[in-house]
């Protein structure tokens, strides 16, 4: 798995909602993962400040929190774009042409999968199996499943995003 860098973003982070989550999990063993999941729900990604604060409150080294955050695919240390496009490259989608869809979208957005456009318009991700294999190839656009994609339909889909 490629190493993720913790991005310095000049945005102040309000830690109050995180503290509430930390209080909730105070007595639970092995709660680092659920806390990180809740933190990402709150902030959209995991800023450096948040990782440090979790480590301090849970009394574990920052290295351990960072280690967990970089291990699991769900966690991101980069701010997301206004829209998220997740393309499925699970086996069923793959044999029905997902690789071409990914290529077209990378071309259209000028970024690689896993990246966000510099204007923070779109984040492009590749995921493995959304369980909608019957509609393959599928993508999830801001939480909505779009199925039976073909290259030009996919390109149009992202072109129209604000």
């Amino acid at each position: 798995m490629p190493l993720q860098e913790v991005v310095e973003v000049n945005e102040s982070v309000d830690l109050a909602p995180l503290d509430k989550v930390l209080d909730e999990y105070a007595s639970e063993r092995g709660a680092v993962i659920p806390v990180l999941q809740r933190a990402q729900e709150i902030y959209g990604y995991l800023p450096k400040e948040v990782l440090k604060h979790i480590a301090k409150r849970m009394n574990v080294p920052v290295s351990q929190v960072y280690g967990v955050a970089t291990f699991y695919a769900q966690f991101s240390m980069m701010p997301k774009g206004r829209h998220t496009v997740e393309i499925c490259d699970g086996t069923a989608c793959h044999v029905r042409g997902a690789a071409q869809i990914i290529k077209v979208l990378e071309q259209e957005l000028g970024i690689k999968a896993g990246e966000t456009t510099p204007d923070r318009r779109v984040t492009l991700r590749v995921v493995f199996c959304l369980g909608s294999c019957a509609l393959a190839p599928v993508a999830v656009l801001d939480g909505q499943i779009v199925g039976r994609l073909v290259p030009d339909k996919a390109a149009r889909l992202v072109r129209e995003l604000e």
Partner: protein
Amino acid sequence: MTEPIYRADVLVCGGTGCVSSGSLKVMEVLRAELERVGLSQEVRVVETGCRGFCAQGPIMVIYPDGIFYCQVKPEDVPVIVEETLLKGRIVQRLVYSEPESHTNVPLYENIPFYEKQQRVTLRNCGIIDPERIEEYIARGGYEALAKALTTMTPEQVIEEVKASGLRGRGGAGFLTGLKWEFTAKAPGDVKYVVCNADEGDPGAFMDRSILEGDPHSVIEGMIICGYAVGAHEGYIYCRAEYPLAIKRLKLAIQQAEEYGLLGENILGTDFSFRLKIKEGAGAFVCGEETALIASIEGRRGEPRPRPPFPAVQGLWGKPTNNNNVKSYANIAQIIANGAEWFAKIGTPRSPGTAIFALTGKVRHTGLVEVPMGITLREIIFDVGGGILNNKRFKAVQTGGPLGGCLPESGLDLKVDFDSLRQAGAVMGSGGMIVVDEDTCMVEFSKYFLTFATAESCGKCVPCRVGGRRMLELLTKITNGEGTLEDIAKIEEIATGMENGSLCALGQLTPGPIRSALRYFREEFEAHVTEHRCPAKQCTALIQYVIDPNKCTGCGRCRRACPVQVIAGDRRMIHVINQAGCIKCGTCYEVCPFDAVVKVSGETIPVPEAPIPVGTFKPVETQA
């Protein structure tokens, strides 16, 4: 308030497959429509789990008749209410139609997709409302728990499970009863029961369907296991990518607690058991039991050497029994119906049923449950309806990214744990991907290898480095730059990984390439020696070309090209500028005249620039 007595039930599939094709909207419109025509006290709408026939979704079954409607759209609802629910007539255009004979099959029980299936593990999926414990109980649910707790000793429960011959449905096929016995006999007062619901194989979704469609069957199995091994606490480790499964599990646990089936003094006995859900965070390796335990403990999901096995030293260092969703889902029926009943299904060495997620280039994609010992041919051609678009069957991959493929000559293999392993494929996760002649086996094995290497946790060298090196060599081959030595090198690395990796992920990563080399070696060699991709799929080795004798100058390809590299005009022969082509295949798909062709290792003469249709004369090539 008592419930009205309904004269009909409309079951609408609320599994993820049907939801993504729009079943929730159908349900909403249906409820409103029933209200409007005054039938809401006579007809009940039930949101069920998955029925497996995902390709035909959204699916609706109307009881008591068992009328099966498929691909139902919200705008079809008024017709269904008017015709079927008011007048008792079948809406023929929504009925499943046999693709070969075009005959309509209106009743659920007659549909060929279900004919050869035997639903044991999935017996409630798509039949009951998974959000109501009462419906599970009405189908005999929690009887087995009562039987075990009040009439059997923990040893007798273990003996029964052992006698049934149930083998671990997570893929390895270890005897479940034996595993329970190890945990039961391990010294220690505190023990745990863990359910592995981290279904990470891209293309398998049976565990999810069980959790979404029949969550209580898993919960009941876990409680019985807790009683048998002497544990009072259990964890279900479920992928975070399965939000609906998690929601239904939470609800099911809450309902079981309210009924006194979970918690203190279950059913008035002195046995107590609690269940918690842990959400995964996206790591395929967490399907390995020691990695899964590390993840529950809040650490990086890295496996560790075994022994000690989790049965002796597992979660928080305590004896832990870990089984797959499907294994637990079989337990209640084994206890209720007896080991003998279970042992009669399937084959002597692999009793019971197997669940496959049938996907790829097969007509009826979906979830199928068949008795062990059925042939692959029956699964793919009878249940699955054969290959899409009348193409030729090429291979079937079983066991997902850590499995292997089988060619046409393997189609008559009787499916069970041992026969598949012998043939170089495995039961594994239950993914079954069918590919046709258009799939390149080199690219196909590269796909699985890409997945497996990306998911390597990096702890042990053979898996971390071996996978990557193998991927580099395979990429060379798909780019047409490989050599025969590269193929030999791949086999050497594969042996090293199989023998030297810490866990099953590393040991099984070479599986797909091994089997592809065993059955399709000539395809690898064509890439290397002839720089040709026989299936015309490896983009570095193919070109899309417009046949000047077939092009009519309609311009469809030019307008559809996402990178605008097709030159042409009305009534002009179109030409693809190869330098800018990304080989997405859109032109190939849209051309109504089959003028766009894929070539690999051959050339066809084309004009350099667009010329009027009908004027093309190939330049005489010097012989």
